[in-house]
């Protein structure tokens, strides 16, 4: 199978700091890949570089055959690359429905505002936001705003969807609801890069796991083998976690 997304030698520096060093990563169509790593590892930077929020200092990024490393953000989005923001980015004064309508209209390629609104209503229902549709986005709870981020990215009809810590800051009940939603999104067939702190979310959805540490990609492979990888255990998980996972037979 050909790769949907291909990063070769991608490097991103912030002044002295090398936030991404020589990243090689390839995502196949339909794959669900978990991306883990400690705080400051460069996970969000990786998403920013792929979506054009930052421009890589070196390396190439190919999406669906097109070089996108130097493409404008809105064009990358219209090619079918969607992401949620770790720090949510709503249009605060618009209603929830208007937020998603805008996404369907521009990134989702709807032919008219009316068509975009229909598509948006569908995505709101899918994300369980229908009864919030008329509210200003600013008035949503954090869990609601995370869901709105999801609905907006789905409205782009993405080929690649990158979820940046959509569960951060949610309580356990909200996490379970979000996990259920992520599972349903995954079932729709988009390629997903899932950035997560919570192992249970990663292990339940992803087959493949990628680990970033100090800007370097230190592991890439099936979940079980990555989780028992010596370097990963040292760098991120810690001994006790590895033993517990081994005990649970994962």
């Amino acid at each position: 199978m050909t790769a949907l997304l291909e990063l070769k030698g991608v490097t991103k520096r912030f002044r002295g700091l090398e936030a991404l060093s020589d990243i090689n990563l390839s995502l196949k169509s339909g794959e669900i890949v978990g991306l883990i790593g400690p705080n400051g590892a460069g996970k969000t930077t990786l998403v920013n570089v792929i979506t054009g929020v930052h421009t890589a200092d070196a390396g190439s990024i190919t999406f669906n055959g097109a070089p996108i490393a130097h493409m404008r953000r809105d064009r990358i989005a219209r090619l079918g690359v969607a992401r949620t923001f770790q720090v949510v980015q709503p249009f605060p004064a618009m209603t929830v429905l208007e937020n998603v309508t805008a996404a369907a209209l521009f990134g989702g390629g709807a032919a008219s505002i009316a068509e975009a609104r229909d598509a948006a209503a569908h995505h709101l229902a899918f994300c369980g936001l229908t009864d919030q549709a008329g509210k200003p986005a600013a008035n949503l709870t954090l869990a609601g705003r995370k869901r709105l981020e999801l609905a907006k990215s789905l409205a782009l009809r993405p080929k690649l969807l990158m979820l940046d810590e959509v569960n951060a800051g949610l309580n356990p009940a909200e996490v379970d609801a979000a996990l259920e939603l992520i599972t349903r999104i995954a079932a729709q067939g988009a390629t997903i890069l899932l950035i997560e702190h919570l192992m249970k979310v990663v292990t339940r959805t992803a087959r493949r796991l990628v680990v970033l540490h100090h800007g370097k990609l230190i592991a890439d492979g099936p979940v079980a083998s990555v989780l028992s990888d010596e370097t990963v255990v040292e760098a991120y998980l810690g001994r006790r976690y590895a033993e517990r996972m081994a005990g649970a037979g994962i």
Partner: protein
Amino acid sequence: MMLRIALPLALPFAIVAVAFVLLSQTDAYIIRLATTFGMYAALALAWNIIGGIAGYPSFATAAFFGLGAYVTAVAQNLGAPLLVGVGLAGAGAALFAGLLGSAILHLRGKYFAIASLVIAEVLRELTNSWTSVTGGGMGINLPLAKTTLLTQPQLYLAAMLFLAAAATSASMLIDRSRLGVALRCIAQNEDAAQIIGVDTRMAKTWAFVISSLFIGLVGGVYASWVTYIDPTDVYDGAMSVKPILMALLGGVGSVFGPVLGAFAYLLLEELLWRNLLEFHAGILGLLVVLLVLFLPGGLSQIRGVGLVSLPKIWRRAP
């Protein structure tokens, strides 16, 4: 469907036509006031497209106004009829905005505001020094327009009211269009707008061009109306500040707010400020500049509600 769109768009023109019939037979003072109202409303509506809907607080109104005035003046002195002269003013201002846009529209917030502030100064200096064409600091006279049906004051009353109606219709149209959605996204969160696929450069440039088109047209009609212009008059910084104040009074970013704001401003100007000293305009200008530059979160904070909600915003600010 077509009717549902066409009817509201035709409404401003219908209202203006009735207003013209009622006003055109009144005395000279009322006609001059109504003409000024049409001019203010058109300028406030035009500013609101870039400054209110798109959230890019432009201080370049005086630049496009002056440019339109001078293009008309020069064209008419070369023999162009009034309508052609005014048309060229609009086209010239729109073209200039399109070129200028790529240079300054990537600047955000107060940086854009400051950059836009400089444009009128530059144009004024150019106009001053290009004496052979513009008459320099001496100013330039315009020929009297040939009118048959209307008197001179009636003609310019009709023209300014027509521009106000056209700017209203354009605002309504933008509000319901893709462009309007894009501009509202840009005003609220430009980074998020790009990530959902909005071509923000294109949208901002169109907003700037359409806004400047109307400002240029108004400048062209103004020059023909007063029949004499000079650089200090038409590139006056107050021209940039007044429309912002009107939009603030009526409600930034709303479609009809600027019209109400223009009316309120004109009333204040006539009743209160006319007899006060000149420097009050300066203080007012400074106030607006400070407001735009230092209002927490920018002008979008008071979108659609106007100055009445300022105290609330100050209280909310950290």
